[in-house]
């Protein structure tokens, strides 16, 4: 695979990642957001595969496989089970209206591309548009987390944010060392488990959504 072809493919994957991110931002129903983040993780896996073929670094195959198994299958399945158990389906109106959220998202995407364009030759160290898309995905994930009221959507935002970081990390030269990426995935899993347990505990003992607890103030 030539570097130019890899560059093009990464650009395309980046566009699809942004597309799934928009779907997450506009999702009214919780299961749509979960499916969108699962699709996003599949694209990350595809990007890993492309980069693995392009750079010959076989560690990236492992990472791509792990990402698909864990972030595209296992964690979304877990989240779907949590919302089935808890019984919530719809996201209530977020803190800022969706139209404003979409406008902020457009501004963030532009900002990421501008930031990335202002760098010099070091830009070549990162294949394709992985840097601006990574920054955009990360910031948009944070936007989802701060503007949503349901705990599951906040977790979805967290996973989307980490997808962005992964995308950039994989595209740097020949990818980050395997140990680091495995460690990161492990941390993501553990974090998700703890969050899921907390949510279920609150739900079972207090019958509320954990993100709604607002007692501690001031």
């Amino acid at each position, binding site marked *: 695979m030539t570097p130019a072809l890899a560059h093009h493919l990464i650009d395309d994957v980046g566009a699809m990642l942004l597309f799934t991110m928009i779907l997450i931002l506009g999702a009214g129903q919780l299961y749509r957001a979960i499916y969108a983040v699962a699709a996003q993780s599949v694209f990350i896996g595809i990007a890993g595969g492309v980069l693995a073929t392009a750079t010959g670094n076989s560690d990236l195959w492992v990472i791509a496989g792990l990402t698909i198994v864990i972030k595209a299958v296992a964690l979304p399945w877990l989240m779907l089970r949590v919302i089935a158990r808890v019984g919530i389906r719809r996201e209530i109106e977020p803190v800022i209206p969706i139209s404003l959220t979409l406008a902020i998202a457009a501004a963030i995407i532009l900002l990421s591309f501008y*930031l990335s364009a*202002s*760098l*010099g*030759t*070091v830009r*070549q*160290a*990162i294949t394709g548009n992985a840097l601006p898309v*990574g*920054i955009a995905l*990360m910031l948009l*994930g*944070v936007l989802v*987390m701060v503007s949503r009221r349901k*705990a599951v959507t*906040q977790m979805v935002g*967290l996973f989307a*944010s*980490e997808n*962005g*970081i992964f995308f*950039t*990390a994989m595209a*740097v*030269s*020949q990818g*980050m*060392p395997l*140990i*680091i990426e495995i*460690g*990161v995935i*492990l*941390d993501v899993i*553990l*974090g998700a488990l*703890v*969050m899921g347990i*907390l*949510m279920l*505990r*609150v739900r079972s*003992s*207090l019958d509320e959504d*954990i*993100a709604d*607890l*607002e*007692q*501690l103030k*001031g």
Partner: protein
Amino acid sequence: MIRHLPVLLPLVPVLTGLAMLALRDPRALAAVDVAGSLVILVLTLLLAGTVITSGPVAAGPFRADAVALPFLFLIGFLAVCAAIYTVGWMREELETGKIKLGTVRHYYALFHAFIATMLLTVLADNLGVLWIAMEGTTITSAVLVGLRGHRGSLEAAWKYIIVTTIGISFGLFGTVLVYAAAAHARGDMSGDAMSWAVIAGMSKKLDPGIVRIGFLFVLVGYGTKAGLAPVHMWLPDAHSQAPSPVSALLSGALIKCALFGIIRFHTIARGACGEAFSGRLLVLFGLVSVVVATPLIITQRDFKRLLGYHSVEHVGIVALGLGFGGTVGTFGALLHVINHGVTKALVFLVAGNAIGRYRTQDMHAIRGLLAIAPWTGTFLLMGAFSLAGTPPFSIFVSELYVLRAGLGGGHFVAVAVFLLMTVIIFGGLIHHAGRMAFGSPSASAKAGRDAGSTLGAMALLAAVMVLLGVFLPSGLERVLSRATEVILG
């Protein structure tokens, strides 16, 4: 064996934790707790001795250099004091039924897992391992925060884990960017590009643009974990809802570990982008933290929340010290890390005793502590004066260093604001502490003597606090000077 200490040191609490899972008797658990913490402290001192005389000790992805030493010492010392405190505290908790017998060993095991992750953070040379360890601290401490299981602690644990995980992912992104710069500058690909020692060595050759963006992400990210405003929201909740010994370690050690991460990147940024960039950002964030924390300290009602906001302010002071820069500022910042850690832990342990006695965290309800529990009351007053920055306590000394650095660097506005806030906080703290200590105790307060172990732990901390306020031991001074040199490159 000395050469393998960077690997052995985190291993000790892991083994201790595993051993604890097998025990059931609370007294045996307490004994293992204290023993394990003592071993950590002893090993730390051994390591310190080697590093001072013969330079950094490296083993695999771990590396102990002079900068890590103050943090390691802080973690070890606080672990010992918390372990001693927990002996009496746990007995009290079991008697009043706040902790169930089955949960006790899980608490101890998690506690040591938490300590292990903090040690890993400080000893990591590989920036990726640093990040993984930091996430590990979040996960273990979040479980500890929510361990009690009631509404407030679950809410605090949720906010804590969500906010700090986002924060740390920003830090990861910054790490990736710095790694990209290093890989690009090195040309060839090898795992070395993740090693801090290697990157710091070639920091002048890194592309400044990408390091700038990377440092910004790291500052916001690890700054969230450290409790820098404006991303400090989780801190008062988490530190107030956690069990008191855990709070002591959270405020005393954990936020300092996050600052450690920032310091590592500060060194890199200084080399790549020049001294002004990261310094100015640190001053900005530090000042905002100090200013934001002040009104919330004055108007606070919950004792532990007050202490949480106070930690925000002091983290701001450390950031100011680092930002003002120069030998004086950096030395002062590192000294403040130790001083504040010791003092804050002392006051949290005092709070633990007071809350156990009065069964409430509301400061208006806690009165007459000196009458009922004279030793605890004395330690409360000592701790409050120290936190407010009064001589002859340690915090006064380190704040003085930071002030001198600020004046020397010409940051007159920042210094003026800082002084103003300090004065306001002094008034507020003394008012709160005085009201709690003096007066006649309320009827609902439990009488009786404090557990001896709790007083012993507090005495230990108070002793160090006074010691460091009066003079600086030469060993400590050498460590801090060497660390300052390493940070400034």
